[in-house]
C-alpha cells in the first residue's frame, strides 16, 4: 500500500478488523509494505496489522525504514497487488501515476483511490494493465463507497450506458443543503463546512466543481468508452448560487444541486432538481443516476468521501484476490 494518510490509515484499520474475511478469501493474505513520503515499512512475512491500525504516522511502525522510496518498495516488495492511496493531483497525476505505472510494469494488480492518475492517463493506464494482463480497479475514485463501476461491470453486463448524472461532491452538497434548509448565504454555509472539516484547506476544489469534473472524466472514459480529458468538461461551480436563487427554486418545488453530467456533453453545473427526484439527496450524501438501454434508470445513493471510501477499496482487493486465486 502506498500512502498512509486518511484513507491509508482507515484502510489499515479495515484490513485489521476484516482480517478473518480476507483470510477466508485467501489464507495467505498479508500486507507486506506501506510507503509514505519519508520512508517505508516492509516485512516480507507481513506487517503487524494491529500495530498499523493503531498508529497515526508510519514512522511509528517497527518495520519502518526512513528514506526508502515508494517506487523502491514497489520494485522490491514482490507483492501481487499495489494499493494507491496518495493524495490527488490532477495537474500531472503524480506521484500516484508513477506508482501505478511501476506496479503494472512489475506485473502487479492495482487498486487505487487516487483520482489524479485516472484523470490524466486513463487510457494509458488501462492499456498498460491490459498489456500486462493485470487488473486495474478504481471504484473508490468516484463517489467513494457507492458501487458504480462494479455495478455496471458485474450487474449490467448487457447494457449500454446512455447517460450518467449525479451529485459527485459531498462538500458542495452540504453547502447547498444548508442554504436550502436554513436559508443561509453561500459564504456562511461554506464557513460552517470548513469548521466541520468537510472541505480542503483550499475549498475551490469542491465549490468550483473541479473534484466532480474529475469524476465526470473517469465515468465517461470508464463507462461510456470515451477518451476525454479534464479540459473537455464544461464547469460552473456553486459560488454564485445565491439564497434568492435557492428560495426561488424551492418555491417551484426544486432544490439546486451541483450535478455532473455525461451524455453527448460533459458538464458540471448547478441544476434544478425536483424535490421528489431520486437524485435530490441532502447533506454530504452523493447520488448517481444511470440511464441504461435495457435496465432503464438506476440510482445509487451513499457517502462519497471519508472513511466509508475504504469499503470500495476492500471490495476491489477482494474481487482481485478471488479472480486471481
Amino acid at each position, binding site marked *: 500500500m502506498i500512502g498512509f494518510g486518511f484513507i491509508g490509515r482507515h484502510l489499515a484499520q479495515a484490513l485489521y478488523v476484516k482480517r478473518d474475511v480476507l483470510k477466508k478469501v485467501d489464507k495467505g493474505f498479508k500486507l507486506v509494505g506501506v510507503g509514505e513520503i519519508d520512508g517505508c515499512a516492509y516485512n516480507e512475512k507481513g506487517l503487524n496489522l494491529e500495530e498499523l491500525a493503531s498508529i497515526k504516522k508510519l514512522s511509528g511502525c517497527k518495520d519502518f525504514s526512513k528514506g526508502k522510496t515508494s517506487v523502491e518498495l514497489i520494485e522490491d516488495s514482490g507483492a501481487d497487488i499495489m494499493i494507491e492511496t496518495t493524495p490527488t493531483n490532477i495537474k500531472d497525476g503524480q506521484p500516484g501515476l508513477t506508482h501505478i505505472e511501476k506496479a503494472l510494469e512489475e506485473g502487479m494488480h492495482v487498486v487505487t483511490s487516487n483520482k489524479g492518475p485516472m484523470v490524466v492517463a486513463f487510457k494509458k493506464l488501462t492499456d498498460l494493465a491490459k498489456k500486462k494482463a493485470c487488473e486495474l480497479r478504481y471504484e473508490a475514485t468516484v463517489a467513494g463507497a457507492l458501487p458504480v463501476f462494479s455495478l455496471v461491470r458485474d450487474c449490467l453486463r448487457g447494457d449500454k450506458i446512455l447517460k450518467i448524472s449525479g451529485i459527485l461532491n459531498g462538500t458542495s452538497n452540504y453547502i447547498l443543503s444548508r442554504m436550502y434548509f436554513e436559508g443561509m*448565504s453561500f459564504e456562511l454555509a461554506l464557513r460552517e463546512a470548513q469548521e466541520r472539516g468537510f472541505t480542503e484547506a483550499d475549498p475551490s476544489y469542491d465549490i468550483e466543481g473541479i473534484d466532480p469534473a474529475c469524476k465526470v472524466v473517469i465515468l465517461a472514459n470508464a463507462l461510456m468508452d470515451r477518451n476525454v480529458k479534464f479540459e473537455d468538461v464544461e464547469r460552473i461551480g456553486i459560488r*454564485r448560487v445565491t439564497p*434568492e436563487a435557492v428560495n*426561488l*427554486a424551492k418555491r*417551484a418545488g426544486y432544490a*439546486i444541486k451541483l450535478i455532473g453530467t455525461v451524455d453527448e456533453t460533459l458538464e458540471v453545473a448547478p441544476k*434544478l432538481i425536483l424535490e421528489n427526484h431520486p437524485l435530490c439527496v441532502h447533506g454530504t450524501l452523493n447520488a448517481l443516476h444511470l440511464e441504461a438501454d435495457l435496465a432503464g434508470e438506476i440510482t445509487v445513493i451513499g457517502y462519497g468521501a471519508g472513511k466509508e471510501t475504504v469499503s470500495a477499496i476492500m471490495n476491489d482487493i477482494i474481487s482481485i484476490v478471488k479472480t486471481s486465486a
Partner: protein
Amino acid sequence: MKFDLTLGLVDRPGQLLKALEPIAKNGGNLIYILHEREKITGGFIPVSLVVDFPTVESFDRTKRELEKRGVSIIKSEEIIEKSLITCILVGRIDMEKLTESDIEGMKIINFEASAPTSKEACIRLNIEAPVKAVGKIMSRLKEMAKKEDAILISSV
C-alpha cells in the same frame, strides 16, 4: 411526427375506407379517429384523425392522394409537442433583452424575480418550447447568460 386532420366524407358507403387507404399506404399510423355522423353539414360527415407519419413528405403525399380521390380536407396541421421548462438566471439580467430575444420556439409563460440582497439579481422563468427544440433553446439561453456574465441554472 403527428398531424391533426379533419376530413369531410360524403355520406355514402366505402368513403372512410377510401380515405384511410392513402394514409396506410404512406406509412401513417392512426392514433385517434372520430367519425361524427351527428355533425353532418352540407352532406359531408366530419372525420377527425390524429396520424403519426414517418416524414413530412409522406404526409404531403397522403394529402395529394386524398385530394385526387375527392376527399375534402377541412383541416390539416402538425401537432407540435410542447415542453414546460423551469430555469433560473443569476447575475445581471436584462429582462427586456430576454423577452425580445429571437430564440425560435421559446415562449416565456411566466417569471418570478427576487429582490436581491446581494449584487446578483435572480429570476425564475417558466418557458414553453417544442419538445424537439428544448436542447437548442437551452443552449441559446446559456450562451446569452454567459455573454451577460450571468449563470443559467437549468432543470435536470
